[in-house]
C-alpha cells in the first residue's frame, strides 16, 4: 500500500531504532508530560492491541467490530491463572494467548464466511454476546459487574506448594520475583511490544503478508488464481486475536482486575479509532494512534477549569472567562469531544492517518524524481 520507491531500510535497522525508541521512552516521554509508568504501560499495551488489529484490518481489509472480546477473554484468563496457579506472569500470558486464540478460531471460522459489513456485524454480535453473558449468566466465572479480582483466599496451588509464608494484603504479580508494577511493569510490556512489533514486521514482509494484501485489493482475483483465501484470512484473524489476548493479559498483569466493560463494543470501536488515526496498513501507525489516544485520555482529561484559568490568565478578565468556558468543553470530562473532532478531521482530510501526514510532509522536503511515484 504505502511502499515508497525509496530503498527499503533493512529490517534489523528498523527494529534497532524501534527498540531504542521504546526503551528510552521513560526519558523522552517525560518531556511531553507522560513520563509516569501507568501511562507508559498503557501505551505499550494498547500499542500491542492496535498492532494486532492492524494485522487483520490493515492487511486483509476485514473490519472487525468485536476485537475487544479477545481483550476481555485474555484478561479473564490471566486473572484466573493468578487466582488458581501462581502470581508469576508467564503462565498468565500463555493462558491468555491460548484462550484468545481458541475463541478467535471459533468466532473467526464462523464470521469469515461473510465479508463487508456482514462480517463487521457478525463480529460485533459475537462480542456483544460475550459481553452480555459475562455480565449476567457467567457471573460465577467473571464475577459480573464487580469484576474479577484477586482475594486472599485464592488457592494459588503452585505458589503455595513452594512457600508457606502467610502474607498480609493482596499478592502482587511478579516475573520470577521482580514485581510487575511501576517501571518494571512497563519494561515487561515494552519487551513484549518490541517482540510483537518484530513479528508484525515479519508478517508484513513475508509471502503470507503479501497474500493478505492481495486478498485486500481483490479477493475474487485471488480465488481465480487458485488460492483458497479462507485459511489465510482465518490465520490473520487468529493472530490478531492472540495479540488482543496478550494485551488483555498485560492489562491484568499491571492491574489484576478484569471487568466485562472491556469487552463492550465501545472498546472495540476504540481500537478501530487508534488504527485509523495512526494509519491503516502501516507498521508503526497503529502504535502512534494508540499512544496519541491514551495520551489525550490521560493528559486532557486531567485539565480542569483552574488549570485553564491559570493558562489564560494573561488575557483580560472578560476574555479569560470566555476562553475558559469554551475550552473547558474540550478537556476534562469532555475530552471525548476532542477525540471526536480530531477523528473527524483526520478521516475527512487525511484518510491515511498520521502516517500519511508524515509522508506528505516528507515529500515536501525531498521531491522525488519523476516517474518513481509508486
Amino acid at each position, binding site marked *: 500500500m504505502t511502499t515508497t520507491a525509496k530503498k527499503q531500510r533493512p529490517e534489523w535497522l528498523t527494529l534497532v531504532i524501534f527498540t531504542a525508541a521504546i526503551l528510552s521512552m521513560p526519558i523522552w516521554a517525560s518531556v511531553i508530560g507522560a513520563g509516569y509508568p501507568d501511562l507508559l504501560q498503557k501505551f505499550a499495551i494498547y500499542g500491542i492491541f492496535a498492532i494486532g488489529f492492524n494485522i487483520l484490518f490493515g492487511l486483509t481489509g476485514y*473490519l472487525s467490530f468485536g476485537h475487544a472480546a479477545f481483550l476481555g477473554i485474555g484478561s479473564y484468563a490471566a486473572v484466573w491463572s493468578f487466582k488458581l496457579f501462581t502470581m508469576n506472569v508467564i503462565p498468565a500470558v500463555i493462558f491468555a494467548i491460548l484462550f484468545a486464540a481458541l475463541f478467535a478460531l471459533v468466532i473467526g471460522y*464462523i464470521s469469515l*464466511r*461473510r*465479508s*463487508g*459489513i*456482514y462480517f463487521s*456485524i*457478525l463480529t*460485533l*454480535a*459475537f462480542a*456483544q*454476546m460475550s459481553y*452480555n*453473558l459475562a*455480565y*449476567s*449468566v*457467567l457471573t460465577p466465572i467473571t464475577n459480573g459487574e464487580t469484576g474479577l479480582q484477586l482475594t486472599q483466599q485464592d488457592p494459588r496451588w503452585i505458589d503455595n506448594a513452594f512457600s508457606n509464608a502467610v502474607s498480609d494484603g493482596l499478592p502482587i504479580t511478579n516475573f520470577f520475583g521482580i514485581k510487575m508494577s511501576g517501571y518494571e511493569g512497563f519494561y515487561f510490556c515494552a519487551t513484549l511490544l518490541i517482540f510483537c512489533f518484530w513479528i508484525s514486521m515479519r508478517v508484513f514482509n513475508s509471502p503470507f503478508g503479501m497474500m493478505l494484501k492481495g486478498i485486500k485489493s481483490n479477493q475474487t482475483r485471488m480465488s481465480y488464481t487458485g488460492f483458497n483465501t479462507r485459511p489465510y484470512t482465518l490465520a490473520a484473524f487468529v493472530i490478531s486475536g492472540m495479540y488482543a489476548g496478550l494485551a488483555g493479559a498485560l492489562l491484568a498483569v499491571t492491574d489484576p482486575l478484569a471487568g466485562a466493560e472491556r469487552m463492550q*463494543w*465501545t472498546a472495540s*470501536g476504540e481500537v*478501530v479509532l487508534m488504527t*485509523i488515526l495512526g494509519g491503516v496498513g502501516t507498521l508503526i501507525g497503529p502504535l502512534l494512534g494508540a499512544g496519541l489516544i491514551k495520551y489525550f485520555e490521560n493528559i486532557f482529561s486531567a485539565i480542569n477549569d483552574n488549570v485553564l484559568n491559570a493558562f489564560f490568565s494573561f488575557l483580560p478578565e472578560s476574555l479569560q472567562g470566555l476562553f475558559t468556558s469554551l475550552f473547558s*468543553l474540550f478537556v476534562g470530562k*469532555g475530552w*471525548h*469531544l476532542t*477525540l*471526536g*473532532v480530531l*477523528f*473527524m478531521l483526520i*478521516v*475527512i482530510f487525511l*484518510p491515511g492517518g498520521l502516517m500519511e501526514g508524515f509522508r506528505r510532509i516528507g515529500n515536501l522536503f525531498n521531491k522525488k524524481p519523476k516517474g518513481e511515484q509508486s
Partner: protein
Amino acid sequence: MDAIILQFLNGLDKGGAYALIALGLTLVFGTLGVVNFAHGALFMLGAFCAVIVNKILNFQLITIDPEKKTAWGTPVEIKTSYAEAWLGDFGAFLVDYSVPVSILIAVPVMLLIGIIMERGLIRHFYNRPHADQILVTFGLAIVIQELIKAYFGANPIPQTAPAEFAGSANISAMLGLGDSIVYPWWRIIYFLFSAAIIAAVFAFLQFTTYGMVVRAGMRDRETVGLLGINIERRFTVIFGLAAVVAGVAGVMYTPILPPDYHMGMDFLVLSFVVVVVGGMGSLGGAVSAGFLLGILQSFASMNEVKAIFPGIDQIIIYLVAVVILLTLPRGLMGRSGVMEE
C-alpha cells in the same frame, strides 16, 4: 396465554422503535449509499427536542400573594408556568401534552439538521469507501453525543406522558376476556404511532410522484439524472426525512425511556443488527426485522424461557442475527450485490 399476549405487546413498542430507526438507516443507505453511524444520534437529538420543549413550557412565573401566609408566616409563593399564565387552560393542556407537542417542533428542527448534515458532511463522502463513511459518521456521533452531554449532563431526564395516557389500559376487558391483561397506554400509543409513521413513509414512496422518482433513483441513479431530474436534491430531502423519522421516534420514546446522551448509540448498535438481518437496502426487510427482533427479545425475557436457556434474553438478538446471516447471506429480504465488496 395471557403471558404470551403480554410479551407480544411488550415486543411491539420496542420493535416499533427499532423499526423506525432501521427504516431511516435503510432509506439513507438505499438512496445515498452511505452507512450512517450518526443515525442513532439523530434519534437522541429528537428525544432531546422533547426535553427542551418541556423545559421551555415549564418556565415558571413566581408571584407572591401578600394576603395568604404559610404556617411559618412567610407569604405563599404561587408558581405558575408562563404557558399557563398567558394561555390559561390551553397552556395547561400544552404543558400536559408536552411530549406530543414536541413533535411539531421536532419535525422542522430534525429536517433542518438532516439537510445540514447531508449538505455539509455526508455529500463529500459519496465516493469514499464504506469504511470511511462509517468512521466519519461515527466521529460525528461522538461529537453530537458529547455536546449534548456538556449541556444536559450525563443523567437521564425523565419525561412524563400526558395524564390521560399515563395509566394502563385493560386490554382483556376490551376484548371481553376478563381482567388479566393490563398494559400501559403509552406503549400501545407508541406502537400505533410507529405503525402510522411507517405506513406514511411507505405511502409517500409508493403513491406520490416524488416518491416514485426517489425509488427510480434508488434503482438507477444515473438514468434518472440523465432524464433531467435533480436526483441529488431529492436524496437530500430523503436524508432529511430519515432524520425526521428518527427524531419523532425519539420524541415519542421519551416517556418510555428517560433520554440520556448515549441512548442513541445503544439503539444504533441494535438497529444496525436489525438492518443487516432485514437485508441491506430493503425497506420492508428493515421494518419486519425490527418488529421480529423486538418481539423475540421480549419473549426471551420470559422467566419460563430463561429457566431453560439461562441468559438467553441478553443475547437473543445477536444470536438470531448470527443464525440469519449464516443461513441467508443477504438477510431476510436483501437484494444481491449490496455491500458485499
